Structure formats: structure tokens, C-alpha cells
């Protein structure tokens, strides 16, 4: 790192060198005089750029994790199912956020990559059907493959996608989705065909059958619980990986490409490579999410990897917050859980029933409220739910001094 040294040395001299901060010390200690009264001041760059750089964040994360792990034992099975779905949406949402939120490439084709992941998993991990293939591999092989296959396809289509920008790209990716759906429909040995569908990968991980119920001491681990854990572990690992990726040079390159691509290039960022990476990674995340998604719902048909699924994921990242990983998780919870909350709430409204008469029935009401909530959240809080949280936090931080 001799070059760095030169610059540092130079700027030491440039600035007169009389500084309390010693940047050559790897811990970058700050003298007491400076840090006194400023608890928020970081004492080293490593801790400043650490993932959980404040005690509050560390606590929150720990608490949330504990809750997540304990959840399946505390709530009903169907809620576990929904939580799993939320986790999967979060995973897929993170993938889309990498591409759309961070790198600014709006994609309506996410569902296609989810589908690719699902079919990869189904072919490799599923049982053969009347017309469909199935190899019944272990999930330890299936899940990585479900990331790699869509990732590679993403890599292949990226050069085409990088030619166009903005809404052109959005509709181009929609085209990918439509063409993909047609392919899915005609590749009967893989997908079972239109209106028919096929079964999904079997839940065997490292030889352990996750479809069985296990007891560890007094804890009974049911199939839905173990699948939730599998998804949760993947979310935590891949979420942290994405967060790591985004706080370093790749994250900055993504943002640069998103905001001003010519300037980014002049700064030494290779546009094609950066966008391609974004595409491939996003597709890989989508693939894993798609594989889990298929295993959760149990049967997949070619029509279901459609525009609406893609839009669900866009809603996840917009509602949660563009270009934040934690926001994506919040957004996924919103999109998946709010309909359920609405269901609970609307069922207690006395004059609204399942009947088709009257002004609206309860399901129509739920759907309408869901749509309205999406509109409200986006119009009222530009940075998504995550932004709302940041705002609340900042309000308290800056509270006594609002200049």
C-alpha cells in the first residue's frame, strides 16, 4: 500500500500534520479530549463501518433474531407459514433491491428468475412425475443450483438489458418474463405444462427429512418449523452477505451507476461489469427465493411466475425502502402480513360479510384497503417504512437541538 502511504503522508504535510487523529494506527484512537461528550463518535474506521455500528442496532438485531427463532413455538402453524413466506419475500426482495434499489435497474422480470429457481429446484430435488423430470437430490445441492442457474441466465441476459435504461428496461424485463412464461409453458418435462404444473423439491437437507416431525427434548420441531428455520438461516446469511456487499466498493459502484453513469465510469467503474453483476446476483437471490417459495406452496404452474408476482416484489422494496436491506425485510413483512391483519380486522366489522351482495364483501374490502395502504405509505413516506423508522429515530436524536 505504498501509494496510499504517499497520499497520507502528503496530506499530513498538507494539513500541517498537527492532528489528534492518528490514521496510521489501525484502531485510529481518538484522544479523550475529542471523544468526550460525544458518545456517537467512532473510535476506529472498522467499527464505524461495522454492520451494527451502534449498541442500539446490536440490541435490536439480537432481540429480533431471538423473536424470530422463538416464533414458531409461540404462534399457530399458519402464522409460521406466513412468516416463512415473509422471509422468502424478503430474500427475493433483497435480490430485487440489489438490482433496482441499489443499481437503479428497474426490473419487472423478477418473477421469471424466481420461476427459474423454482424449476431448477423442482427438477433437481423433486420426484419424477408422469411427464416431469425429477432427480430427488439433496437440498444441499439443490439450493446452490437454484441460485446458480438463474444467476447464469441473469448473466446472459444482462448485456442486452444494459443497453437500455429506465422504463425501457422495465418493459424489456417484462418481455423477458413473458417470453419466459411461454418457455415454461412449453417445456412440459420441466414444468408439467400450462394449467397442470408439477410437484416441487423434496425437503431433505443433508439427508435429514425435514418433512418429519422431530423432538429435541421438550421442543417439537414440526415440518413447517424446520422449513421456516431453513428459510430464516438463508435470509440471515444472504441478507448479511448483501449488506456486506453493499457497504463496500460494489455497493458504491452500484449507487454510482444508478445516479450518474458517465461520472461513475470516469471514476473507474465499469458499467457493463457492474450492471451485469447486479443482474446476476439479483437473479441468484431470486432463484433461491423461488426455490423456497415453490417448496412452501407445494405445487407450481407456469402461469404463476407472472407480472403480478414481480410487482409484489417491487412493492416490497418500495414500501420497505429503496436501497436498504433491513427495509426490504420490513417491506416483505408488510406485503405478506398486512393482508392477514386486514383479514382479522375486517372480519369483526359486523355488516361486512363474505356474501356477494351489499356494497362490497369482506375480501373486496381487504383488497381495497391493501391497495390504499400501499398508496398511503408511498405517498406519505418517500423512503419507505425504513425511512419512517429513521425519521422517528432522528427526531429523538436531534431532539433538543433542532437549530
Amino acid at each position, binding site marked *: 500500500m505504498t501509494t496510499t502511504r504517499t497520499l497520507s503522508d502528503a496530506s499530513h504535510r498538507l494539513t500541517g500534520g498537527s492532528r489528534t487523529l492518528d490514521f496510521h494506527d489501525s484502531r485510529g484512537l481518538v484522544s479523550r479530549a475529542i471523544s468526550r461528550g460525544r458518545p456517537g463518535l467512532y473510535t476506529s474506521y472498522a467499527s464505524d463501518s461495522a454492520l451494527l455500528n451502534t449498541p442500539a442496532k446490536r440490541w435490536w438485531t439480537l432481540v429480533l433474531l431471538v423473536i424470530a427463532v422463538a416464533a414458531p413455538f409461540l404462534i399457530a402453524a399458519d402464522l409460521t407459514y406466513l412468516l416463512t413466506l415473509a422471509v422468502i419475500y424478503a430474500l427475493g426482495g433483497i435480490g430485487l433491491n440489489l438490482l433496482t434499489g441499489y443499481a437503479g435497474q428497474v426490473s419487472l422480470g423478477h418473477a421469471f428468475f424466481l420461476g427459474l429457481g423454482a424449476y431448477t429446484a423442482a427438477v433437481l430435488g423433486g420426484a419424477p412425475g408422469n411427464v416431469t423430470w425429477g432427480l430427488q437430490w439433496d437440498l444441499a445441492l439443490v439450493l446452490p443450483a437454484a441460485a446458480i442457474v438463474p444467476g447464469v441466465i441473469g448473466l446472459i441476459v444482462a448485456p442486452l438489458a444494459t443497453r437500455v435504461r429506465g422504463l425501457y428496461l422495465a418493459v424489456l424485463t417484462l418481455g423477458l418474463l413473458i417470453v419466459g412464461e411461454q418457455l415454461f409453458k412449453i417445456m412440459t418435462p420441466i414444468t408439467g405444462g400450462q394449467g397442470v404444473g408439477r410437484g416441487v423439491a423434496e425437503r431433505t437437507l443433508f439427508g435429514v427429512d425435514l418433512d418429519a416431525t422431530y423432538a429435541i427434548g421438550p421442543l417439537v420441531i414440526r415440518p413447517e418449523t424446520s422449513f421456516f428455520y431453513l428459510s430464516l438461516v438463508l435470509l440471515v446469511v444472504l441478507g448479511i452477505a448483501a449488506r456486506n*456487499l453493499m457497504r*463496500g466498493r460494489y455497493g458504491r459502484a452500484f449507487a454510482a451507476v444508478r445516479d450518474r453513469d458517465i461520472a*461513475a465510469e*470516469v471514476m473507474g467503474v465499469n458499467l457493463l461489469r457492474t450492471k451485469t453483476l447486479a443482474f446476476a446476483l439479483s437473479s441468484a437471490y431470486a432463484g433461491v427465493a423461488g426455490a423456497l417459495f415453490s417448496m412452501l406452496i407445494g405445487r407450481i404452474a407456469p402461469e404463476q411466475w407472472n407480472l403480478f408476482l414481480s410487482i409484489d416484489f417491487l412493492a416490497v422494496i418500495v414500501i420497505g425502502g429503496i436501497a436498504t436491506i433491513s427495509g426490504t425485510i420490513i417491506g416483505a413483512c408488510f406485503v405478506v402480513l398486512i393482508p392477514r391483519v386486514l383479514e382479522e380486522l375486517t372480519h369483526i366489522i359486523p355488516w361486512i360479510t363474505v356474501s356477494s351482495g351489499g356494497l362490497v364483501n369482506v375480501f373486496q374490502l381487504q383488497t381495497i384497503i391493501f391497495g390504499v395502504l400501499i398508496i398511503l405509505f408511498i405517498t406519505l413516506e418517500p423512503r419507505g417504512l425504513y425511512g419512517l423508522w429513521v425519521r422517528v429515530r432522528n427526531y429523538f436524536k436531534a431532539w433538543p437541538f433542532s437549530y
Partner: protein
Amino acid sequence: MTALLTVDDLTLRFGGSTALDGVSFDVQPGELFAVIGPNGAGKTSTFNCISGVYRPQEGSIALDGRSLLGRAPDEVARLGVARTFQNVELFDNLSVLDNLLLGRHQKTSYSWPEAMAWLGRSRRQEIAARRSVEDLIEFLDLASVRTMPVGILPYGIRKRIELGRALAMEPRLLLLDEPVAGMNSEETEDMARFILDIRTELGTAMIMVEHDMRLVMDLADRVMVIDFGKRIALGTPEVVQRDPAVIAAYLGGASDIVTDGLTDEVAR
């Protein structure tokens, strides 16, 4: 001493119009070279050609004997050319720190799997990058704004951040497009100081486009004047300043601003 940058017979056309018409010059290592000329003369286009944003139709550009022609901007950056932009081109949503760190993109080299793991090389390189960027923040006196998003900062500060971002690239050749535009004299003086410091302390060669004649005449080693894409003068500030062609095409009556009126004390 061999030239660091040699530009020869550079010609750039857009459809029918010619933006650059056979411009040639060279820049010596460590030199502070200024380019001036009327609006639309082709100064920024020259920068764009050097940094790979525009592809000139004719001519050659070589850095240290290596041709820059046909190279993508990111390759040119890798070879050691950094620049600032006339219309500040910062990443508005990113903090000052991140903008500067972007300048270190080429100086970090870990792969994406390493980035995901955030162990070993990626971590070391990030911390090193951060350290050198903090030095720059100190140098450019940006500490008070370092975590602010760049978008809301006033123009003058943004220009300075842009300089910092270019410096973070540790360039061998630095292109400055109107570094003091929109600054008052105090801020201009600060910027002048930064430029001089960069030059004396880092020895970076610089090409500067500027309409502030005081800055150009005081700082530059040599000045090139272009008009309608053609080079009309090249020489030391003193010589160029008196060149009648330059006065006619560029300084015009405005040479008064330099020589008399309110600012007459400035000119010797």
C-alpha cells in the same frame, strides 16, 4: 523530460459541427497547464476526449506513450487520469464520505464473494481506503460535512468534494473543469491553495479549464487558448495574455477586468 500527456491533432465532430479541430498540446509531469477559451470553444470536449467519454474522429492522445484513444473511461481512469466536472457530477444521494470512497474504486480490488464475506482482503482494503479518504477530508476541510448527503450541500463545497473524489483516485494527471466557478474570492483563494498544495506535495500534473483569469494567470505554468475548436495560442501566461488574437477572441474588452477598473490592484 518527456511529456506525460501528448495530444496530437485532436479532431472531434458532432454531426455537422466541429467541436475540436486539430488541437495539439502536451503536458509535462508536474505541470499545471491551463486551457482557456470562449464558451463552446471545446475545452470540456477536450477533457471528454482525454477521459474517454467522447471518441474523437482523428488525432491521438497518449499518456506516458500509451494511447488513450478507444479506451473506455474506466480504463483511462485506471491508467491514472482523474477529473472534475464543469456541472458538478457528484452522487447526490451518497454521503461525502461515500463519494470520496468512490474515488478509490480502482484502488480496491477485492472480488464480490470476498465483499459478501467482509473478511480478510475486503475488510483490510476498505479500512485502508477509508483511512486515505479521511486524510483527504482533513486536507480539504470537509470534516464537518463528511456524513451529509452531497445533494443538499452548497455549490462551493460540492466543487471541493469533487476535487477530493478525483484526488482519491491518486491520479497522475488531474483534469479540473472550472474549479472556482461560482466561488467568491475567498473561496477562490482556498481553492487556489489546494491546487498549489496538490501540485507541490503530490506532484500531480494538472490541466485546468477556467474562466477566472486571475487564477489562470497566477497559477498556470503554461496556458493554451482555443477558439472554435482550434488552438490559437499556447505559452506562458504573460505571453498569452498579451497575444492580440487571444484578446480578440477571448479576453476582449474584458481584459479590462484584469487590467483596470475595480480590480486594478490585482494586475501588476
